């Protein structure tokens, strides 16, 4: 097996969860109410747990003396493989929920596919994670409906968030080389099939939430190949600060 390609694919799986987990972690103590604050940080914790599983395995795959922490903390910006969507800022609660919902509609069916992966570790991580992500999807879809079909104010904020974030949705399904490779040898997800599931799910729930998906939106791409939005540098500045300032520090 091509170890480098497997490593790249694991980065892609892990980075999405990690950067979204970091964004959600920023809300710790700042959620709109106690229960949602706890919910968002719980989701963040699940995502970081999943990332650890991916990166512990990635460290094994790449060999040498790299650890999961090196992989998480010590890469340059253009070496991160997460999509643009997950690095978008927590503008307000509607943005947080909309970003989460779009990601969950991709993440949940992806994990269901990965449960069948021919790679035993990926399949084991997916089987573990899928149970958790079902709760994430429940949470985000309930809030999309509640805010979208709520007051005029909450509806407008939710629609604004959707108008802003929808342009980052298609990148999740634009196949990179490592995704193509992983699909072909039967260890990764099939993005075309995923996109269908994603479209059906988002359309149904946005309709129920009385929200309109922007039409003919120019979609944005690039982060999965290392070309990130301006926000990524700030996220990494926070995220990597301790490791950069005190190399090899441990808790």
């Amino acid at each position, binding site marked *: 097996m091509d170890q480098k390609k497997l490593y790249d694919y694991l980065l892609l799986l892990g980075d999405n969860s990690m950067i979204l987990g970091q964004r959600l972690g920023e809300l710790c103590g700042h959620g709109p109410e106690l*229960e*949602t604050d*706890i*919910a968002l940080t*719980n*989701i963040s*914790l*699940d*995502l*970081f*747990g*999943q990332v*650890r*599983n991916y990166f512990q395995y990635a460290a094994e795959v790449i060999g040498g003396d790299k650890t999961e922490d090196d992989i998480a903390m010590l890469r340059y910006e253009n070496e991160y493989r997460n999509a643009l969507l997950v690095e978008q800022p927590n503008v307000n609660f509607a943005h947080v929920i909309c970003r989460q919902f779009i990601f969950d509609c991709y993440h949940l069916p992806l994990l269901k596919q990965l449960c069948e992966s021919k790679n*035993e*570790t990926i*399949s*084991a*991580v997916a*089987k*573990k*994670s899928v*149970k*958790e992500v079902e*709760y994430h999807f*429940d*949470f985000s879809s*309930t809030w999309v409906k509640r805010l979208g079909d709520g007051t005029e104010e909450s509806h407008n904020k939710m629609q604004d968030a959707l108008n802003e974030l929808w342009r980052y949705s298609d990148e999740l399904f634009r196949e990179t080389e490592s995704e193509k490779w992983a699909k072909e040898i039967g260890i990764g997800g099939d993005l075309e099939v995923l996109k269908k599931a994603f479209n059906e799910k988002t359309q149904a729930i946005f309709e129920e939430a009385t929200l309109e998906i922007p039409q003919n939106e120019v979609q944005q791409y690039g982060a999965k190949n290392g070309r990130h939005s301006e926000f990524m540098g700030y996220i990494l500045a926070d995220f990597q600060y301790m490791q950069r300032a005190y190399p090899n520090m441990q808790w």
Partner: protein
Amino acid sequence: MVTLDSHIDDILNDVHDPEIPVLSIMDMGIVREVNEKDGVYHIKITPTYSGCPAMDTISDDIIAAFKQEGLEAKVKLVLSPAWSTDWITEKGRKALENYGIAAPLEASADKDALRGEKNKVKCTNCGSKDTRLVSQFGSTACKALFQCNDCHEPFDYFKCLK
């Protein structure tokens, strides 16, 4: 469940989940395999949730508990098969309830309860079934928050995971 000789069983039954101290790791059902080879005990444990921060502490506690008995243990984390709340023992469920955490319901009843359907989860304080969901997410990844409409006591519910 694994069957063990009684000495090893006693040691493991004395290691507790740091977040739910009334539950031993045996009652939690997270010990998946114990093998002895050349005087070293190899123990496989599985996490309840991927991000469960207690796993590192539990590993250290197992090693320390064996050391106290003059034995050497090595702990490995395994992910497959994924942990299920079905693996919590009957004794464990009782201990949870006594501690004030409602034990997990069956999968379909659990989904209903977490989607806000009332009268599913029994209050651990007064036993009333007139309870409501406060938050799907609670103080740890494995719990949700409920409140009793009769005695008004808030309490944790251990979410079903299958």
